[in-house]
């Protein structure tokens, strides 16, 4: 069984051999959990449809704004779109990924991997990939379904919308990684994530989207990753200005929190 094994060499201390298999297996196993794929992929669409179809007046053009305002003539459900995209970003990064990683730590999966040539970072990266793809698919699904059901105006600044979405993902996945790094157990990760998730949804406009957000919420929200993402996408979608502050806020969250998350991360 072992006689042909070559003598070990000191050359390699870390390896990504088998990462493709790891990513495929993790995806297959992850899909068997109903909750994670549902929340990551369908939740934004469900919320968009629920808000648009169930709340009266959401599909009636806004006429109580000044006629020269950018909001005049838009449907309220359309102004909700940046919030739903931000929600797609926040759900996978904050509610699904940190709990998965904390569960793996708690069960000793990360430690078990440490004894194989695969580095435990591999499984973290695999779940970053899975959840990033989930976010994009969830956002795209909401856009397509929303377009078919409600019809939306095209974004004023498509490039800035995409940039805001990508920076929002970077900032929120960093935050999720920070939660995964410090939570000792899956239950703690879930608790921390939820206590961040709902205030962030509030600041991203889940209850008061775009034009109807109170000024104080907007002021606070612009300094949080998800609030900044929603505001930045709102500006880019409907208005002319460049959301510089919000983009900087998201970049700073990423640049500052990512090294902290990496430093605090425990494998067992």
């Amino acid at each position: 069984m072992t006689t042909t094994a070559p003598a070990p060499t000191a050359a390699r201390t870390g390896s990504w051999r088998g990462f493709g298999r790891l990513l495929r297996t993790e995806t297959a196993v992850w899909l068997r959990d109903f909750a994670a794929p549902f929340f990551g992929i369908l939740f934004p669409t469900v919320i968009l449809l629920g808000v648009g179809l169930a709340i009266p007046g959401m599909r009636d053009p806004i006429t109580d704004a000044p006629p020269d305002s950018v909001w005049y003539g838009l449907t309220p459900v359309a102004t909700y779109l940046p919030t739903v995209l931000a929600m797609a970003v926040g759900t996978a990064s904050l509610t699904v990924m940190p709990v998965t990683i904390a569960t793996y730590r708690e069960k000793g999966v990360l430690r078990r991997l440490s004894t194989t040539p695969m580095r435990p970072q591999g499984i973290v990266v695999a779940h970053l990939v899975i959840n990033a793809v989930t976010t994009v698919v969830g956002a795209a699904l909401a856009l397509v379904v929303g377009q078919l059901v409600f019809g939306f105006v095209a974004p004023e600044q498509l490039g800035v919308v995409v940039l805001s979405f990508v920076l929002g993902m970077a900032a929120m996945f960093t935050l999720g990684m920070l939660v995964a790094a410090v939570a000792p157990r899956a239950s703690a990760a879930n608790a921390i994530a939820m206590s961040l998730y709902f205030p962030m949804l509030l600041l991203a406009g889940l209850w008061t989207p775009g034009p109807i957000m109170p000024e104080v919420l907007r002021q606070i929200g612009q300094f949080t990753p998800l609030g900044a993402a929603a505001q930045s996408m709102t500006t880019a979608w409907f208005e002319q200005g460049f959301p510089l502050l919000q983009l900087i806020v998201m970049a700073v969250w990423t640049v500052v929190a990512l090294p902290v998350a990496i430093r605090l991360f425990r494998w067992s």
Partner: protein
Amino acid sequence: MVQPIVEVRNLRKTYGDKVAVDDVSFAVEPGEIFGILGPNGAGKTTTVETLAGLRHADGGTVRVLGIDTQRNPGAVRDHLGVQLQEAALHDKITVGEALRLFAAFYDDPADPDELLELLDLTPHAGVQFARLSGGQRQRLSIALALVGNPRVAILDELTTGLDPQARRSTWDLVERVRATGVTILLVTHFMDEAERLCDRLVVIDGGRVVAEGTPAGLIDGLESERTVVVRFAAEDAPRARGVLDELAARHPDVLRVDDAGAATEVAVTGSRRVLFALVPALAEADLVPEDVRTVTKSLEDVFLAVTGRQYDPQAGDAQQLEGARS
């Protein structure tokens, strides 16, 4: 002398002011089943986890295949299989998926299907981890430790929580694995497991090696006292006790006579020649024993002899660490 495949020298590991491993040294030769035996909290798991490069030693050296795993843990991972105490897989991964996944990490993996067959897991290949029985999980855990075609496999407490039948089939399995040429480092707190499986072993207590050798050698090395238990017919028993007490008083090879539990049984303890003294005395008094048996010594007696206390496999960490410091 063969070059050792695993070598631990003066290993020391502390957590704060708790001494987990005080001073442990041993060497494992290729092809052996080498046991690390001791009560819970003795420092066994810390020793092998340091050996596998999962923990940093505070002192001493650990080498696997000649490589210092503290300095360069990555260099041996392709050749060292590790089975950790607790299960460590996603609840929904299947047996087959887990084996193929782990196989993909190694340079020269074993055939997952052959391993499934070797470990009697083929019928369960499609079963999710959460639905496996304790014995099946243990076998999967062993399979994962072997899937990289390792030259050395560390198996930590592999029969804990298994029923007697599953334990025995796991033991058979370990012997089958060794027959394929894998050197096995077996961590256990079960004396009978060590006695049955190990070619050589160290007994660890309070973070130190208190005995080292083959199971038979350790048992033979105990002081030369032997005990013979003799059972008599009920009507002979009182007279027999008198004859034997008198024998103990006058014969240099007979040290003492004790009750052996049942009223008709007498335990006679003496030198290695105690039986030679016993039989003529019984013949002379025409006492025909119903049954004669020698009391077998076990590793538990070895533990008692080297530590001065009864073996308690569940002795807690705190107590053991206390012992390590004093």
